[in-house]
């Protein structure tokens, strides 16, 4: 071996050792960068879906609910009824920005959140891993806000055509503070009494708001209808819907918006969102058919109003179950909801004689309770493994879950009844709650707002 070749060999070994040592830090750096890029891509995808979902849920209130309810009243009350939905898009937003988000989602006790996020303190780009780890907390905050807007708007179906506007404003502000925020915290807030994923003592399943949104609003609607009394002329004057065209457009917008409501509640652009989307759509379709069918048999004709009422009833009932059940149980839940809610508004309501003008209780209170209980029956770990491998619903062998669902529903009923009654009493004693007889006869559009929906000479 020559001296030259020795030098060459040692050079080669040295070179190789450098080459071998060099890639290690380089690879780690590139791996970290790749991980960062994957996270950013997931975050971008999830955030895009959640922002769209937030907008879809707002669309449910305006124009969805405004048109649905606006069409069901007499023409002299069309604007006031639309106003009952629209004004909450403004009022609840301000409440939410100041204290609402914090009271619902701040880490407090079992019943109400803290003030840690008051005035949007600490709510920004960084995700809140307790709720949604891949999207900015700002997105989560604004998404949840849209639920807080629609819930009190749903109640307006019960007091339509006879409430005083100042009374309505004070009522919904107090109701959102004292009924909605505590209920949202109990079910969805960290440490809430009923929160199944974040350490609640009574874990109840409520994917998108069966208890929080529909039971609270529906039961409160019944209390409002009973407290305010019947509309003047109820039972003797004709009170036909003035435009079922509006109502049909509104209900279809609700149906589309509900994809944001339920599939969005996956809080990510995930396969769970797809599953909830399908369950939601299937239940709405089945319920539209079953309400129509029941009506067809009973009165001899299938009506447009029956079809859209059924679809809404199915959407209500599937709300708590949407992220926990397979497609076939979703069809079944819708089927039951359509028939049960139809019997409620067309038979039971007339037996008791209360004037729930637009059937907020019959559809949301009853449909919501039915859905909450059936969630405990049909929930499956194959769709959502929330209990880490353990059985979810009754059909998987967890009979106790039905009990938890009933307890959660009972708490929502209780809070709604007591809270609403006290708030109505306070409003009645301060600003007044029911319109004067003359104002009601003239129509709330003119007497409360000084305008009319349809101007003949314009």
């Amino acid at each position, binding site marked *: 071996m020559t001296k030259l070749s020795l030098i060459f060999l040692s050079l080669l070994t040295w070179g190789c050792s450098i080459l071998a040592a060099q890639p290690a830090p380089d690879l780690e750096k590139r791996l970290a960068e790749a991980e960062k890029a994957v996270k950013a891509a997931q975050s971008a995808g999830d955030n895009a879906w959640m922002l769209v979902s937030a907008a879809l849920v707002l669309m449910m209130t305006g124009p969805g609910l405004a048109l649905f309810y606006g069409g069901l009243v007499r023409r002299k009350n069309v604007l006031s009824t639309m106003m009952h939905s629209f004004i909450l898009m403004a009022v609840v937003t301000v409440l939410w920005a100041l204290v609402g988000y914090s009271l619902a989602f701040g880490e407090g006790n079992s019943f109400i959140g803290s003030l840690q996020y008051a005035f949007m303190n600490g709510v920004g780009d960084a995700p809140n891993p307790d709720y949604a780890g891949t999207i900015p907390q700002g997105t989560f905050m604004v998404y949840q806000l849209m639920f807080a807007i629609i819930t009190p708007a749903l109640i307006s179906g019960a007091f339509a055509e006879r409430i005083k506007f100042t009374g309505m404003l004070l009522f919904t502000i107090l109701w959102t503070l004292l009924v909605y925020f505590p209920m949202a915290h109990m079910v969805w807030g960290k440490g809430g009494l009923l929160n199944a994923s974040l350490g609640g003592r009574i874990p109840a399943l409520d994917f998108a708001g069966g208890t929080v949104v529909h039971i609270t609003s529906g039961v409160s609607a019944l209390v409002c209808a009973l407290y305010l009394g019947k509309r003047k002329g109820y039972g003797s004057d004709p009170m*036909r819907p003035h435009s079922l065209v509006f109502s049909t457009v509104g209900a279809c917008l609700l149906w589309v918006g509900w994809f944001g409501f339920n599939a969005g509640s996956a809080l990510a652009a995930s396969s769970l969102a797809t599953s909830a989307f399908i369950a939601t759509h299937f239940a709405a379709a089945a319920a539209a058919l079953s309400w129509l069918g029941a009506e067809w048999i009973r*009165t001899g*004709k299938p*009506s447009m*109003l029956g079809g859209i009422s059924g679809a809404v009833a199915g959407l209500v009932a599937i709300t708590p179950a949407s992220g926990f059940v397979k497609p076939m149980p979703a069809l079944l839940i819708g089927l039951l909801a359509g028939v049960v809610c139809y019997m409620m508004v067309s038979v039971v309501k*007339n037996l008791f004689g209360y004037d729930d003008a637009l059937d907020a209780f019959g559809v949301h209170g009853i449909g919501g309770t039915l859905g909450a209980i059936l969630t405990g029956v049909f929930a499956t770990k194959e769709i959502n493994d929330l209990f880490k491998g353990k059985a979810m619903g009754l059909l998987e062998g967890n009979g106790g879950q039905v009990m938890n669902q009933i307890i959660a529903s009972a708490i929502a009923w209780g809070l709604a009844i007591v809270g609403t009654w006290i708030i109505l009493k306070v409003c009645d004693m301060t600003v007044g709650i029911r319109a004067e007889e003359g104002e009601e006869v003239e129509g709330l559009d003119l007497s409360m707002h000084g305008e009319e929906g349809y101007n003949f000479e314009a």
Partner: protein
Amino acid sequence: MKKIEAVIQPHKLEEVKEALKRIGIDGMTITEVRGHGRQKGHKEVYRGMEYQVDLLPKVKLEMVVPSSRSEEVIKTLGDAARTGKIGDGKIFVFDVAEAIRIRNEDRGETAL
């Protein structure tokens, strides 16, 4: 001059208008109205709540014509509006004291 007032089925309006135009009557006022005579209404059901609807949509035509033409107009209008079923409507004829064209103060039949 005679005022002819007819309440007819809304779906017959086009036919009546065309028939009147053919005999040279093209001035008229039309209103959408609701009413009923011997025709019975119908039942509507909204979420189980039944309503008896007995005021049905009709169209009211009003026109003023020279007295000499009134019978011809009544016949043309009636023939065009007739289906032979209950609910076809009615024609009323009034004497008109005076007619004035607002634009140039023409009076009587020249104002028509």
